[in-house]
């Protein structure tokens, strides 16, 4: 099982970077005026579909960040370590004193869409840059649900952020230059399914927070939307339609991956495991179909192609390494073992232009993953202490040559450089 709750939060690295690289810059801009606009059409209605709000909360994965390890659900207190001290998630139960019970709908809308709480600006650990796309109707449903939660009295912890990073006007300035609150507008030339998927993926699922690279201000670079980024030593994959289609993901593969954690194209790992476990596995069938229509940019059926296996080449040095270290779990011919280890054949991690995750997984291993009483994956050991750079190179090249369409041309320098980033 995941040993540290911190591992659930690949966004953490983003937050650290954001704080370290940009607050100084934005603090300088902090004296500029910043307006927190009120919600357009909000009347402090507490109506709304509580059940729908509960579902939306699941897909937005709010519990994951707003619950401390061993703490009461949604009562906050989970630390996000930054180089300047810890930022703690807040109590979002309906408690009037310590939670958000005294928020009216406008207050809540401002927090969700503009990152402005009633006590000041929120750190962008809260993905309001994505949530700003939420419709008014859904924001209301989430509000209604939160107001219906059992009030839990638990005071928010003061952030331990040191001067000058504790000055929240820096965040106002950041919002001014880096946060562009947009309204979600369905695309007319796409299907209803696709549009629903776009909304689920970009607004609620806030997938771009990890999968989209950031610019120098650490705002998502929209022209590189979903092209992948490095977080906590792993690469949040390129999930653009062109890349997913090149790898021959089908709607069924994505459904399997998001609901069960594994698929014909491999398993999720790193920060995606808790996302599947806590959130995506709850997607309704319709919404799942919508998500895959959007990600694959088609409603059409995609034919699964045969999984790549180019045959073994015993003369290559990687062959002996594969047989000695990998074949026991991943199969003599890379066919994998159900519930133990994914197949190499067809594995999407192998079949990427970037070898980052292949090397990261060899060095650091993968934590065990438990889904339910019939589905668990045992931990993969990391070999950072045992395999030297030449062996990692030989093995990575062998895996790519044997089970993917990628070339086996990595050199030791590439491995060495990757190692520095991965083991940092």
């Amino acid at each position: 099982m995941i040993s540290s709750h911190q591992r659930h939060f690949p966004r953490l690295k983003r937050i650290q970077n954001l704080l370290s690289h940009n607050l100084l810059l934005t603090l300088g801009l902090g004296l500029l005026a910043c307006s927190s606009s009120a919600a357009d059409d909000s009347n402090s209605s507490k109506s709304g579909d509580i059940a729908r709000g509960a579902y939306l909360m699941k897909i937005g994965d709010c519990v994951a960040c707003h619950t401390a390890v061993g703490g009461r659900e949604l009562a906050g207190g989970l630390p996000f370590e930054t180089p300047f001290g810890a930022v703690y998630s807040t109590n979002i139960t309906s408690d009037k004193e310590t939670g958000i019970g005294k928020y009216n709908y406008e207050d809540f809308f401002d927090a969700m869409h503009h990152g402005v709480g009633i006590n000041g600006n929120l750190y962008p650990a809260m993905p309001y840059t994505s949530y700003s796309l939420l419709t008014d109707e859904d924001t209301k449903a989430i509000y209604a649900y939160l107001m219906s939660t059992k009030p839990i009295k638990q005071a928010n912890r003061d952030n331990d952020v040191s001067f000058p990073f504790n000055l929240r006007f820096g965040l106002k300035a950041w919002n001014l230059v880096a946060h562009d609150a947009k309204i979600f507008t369905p695309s007319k030339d796409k299907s209803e399914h696709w549009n629903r998927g776009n909304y689920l993926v970009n607004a609620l699922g806030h997938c771009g927070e990890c999968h989209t690279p950031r610019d120098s201000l650490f705002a998502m670079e929209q022209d590189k939307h979903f092209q992948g980024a490095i977080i906590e030593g792993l690469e949040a994959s390129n999930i653009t339609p062109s890349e997913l289609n090149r790898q021959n993901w089908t709607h069924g593969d994505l459904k399997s991956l998001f609901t069960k954690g594994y698929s014909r194209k491999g398993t999720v790992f790193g920060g995606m495991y808790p996302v599947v476990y806590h959130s995506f596995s709850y997607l309704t069938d319709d919404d799942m179909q919508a998500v895959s229509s959007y990600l694959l940019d088609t409603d059409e059926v995609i034919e699964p192609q045969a999984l790549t296996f180019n045959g073994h080449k015993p003369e290559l040095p990687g062959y002996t390494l594969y047989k000695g270290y990998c074949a026991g779990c991943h199969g003599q011919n890379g066919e994998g073992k159900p519930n133990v280890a994914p197949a190499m054949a067809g594995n999407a991690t192998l079949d990427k232009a970037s070898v980052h995750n292949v090397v990261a997984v060899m060095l650091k291993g993968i934590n065990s993953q438990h889904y339910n009483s019939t589905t668990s994956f045992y931990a993969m050991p990391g070999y950072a202490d045992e395999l030297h750079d030449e062996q990692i190179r030989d093995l990575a090249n062998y895996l790519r040559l044997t089970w993917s369409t990628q070339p086996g041309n990595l050199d030791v320098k590439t491995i060495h450089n990757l190692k520095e980033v991965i083991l940092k």
Partner: protein
Amino acid sequence: MSQSIKLTINNQAVGPIDVADGVMMIEFLHEYVNLTGTKFGCGAGVCHACTVLVDDEQGISEVVRTCINGVERFNGKRIRTIEGHAKQNSLGEITALSPVQEAFLEHFSFQCGWCTPGFVNESTALLERLKRKPIAKDQVEKVIEDALSEHVCRCTGYVKYYAAVKDLILNTKGLTL
């Protein structure tokens, strides 16, 4: 395809032996060199019954599962299996058990004994580690738990294994501060 494998097992040179392709280490121990003390449990890397020790040049050992690792991983290495722990005379008769083996007997740690080779190897590696780097007394339980937690035993409920190792660590000079 076959390959030539050579290694040192319990201080004895073994091989070169021609081994077929795709042979896991446990199969090699059982079928090629007749060392059947290492037990096959789950065969999937979960129960840790099949662990052996792989020693590096400094004598620092790594605990490795033989059911999921091919014989190639052990080629040219020095390993210890359950057969190598007790002292033997020149006739191959056992003259003394290792301290870990003694402790497990004294504490009635095992019943069917299927998991025992794995526990013996892992606990031996732990003791050797503490000898190099002793720990505070109040850390002992945690360290034992960390070392043994992956080992599955279906008979005795673990307590007697853990108690035996704790006893042994606390009563062996130089392992704690």
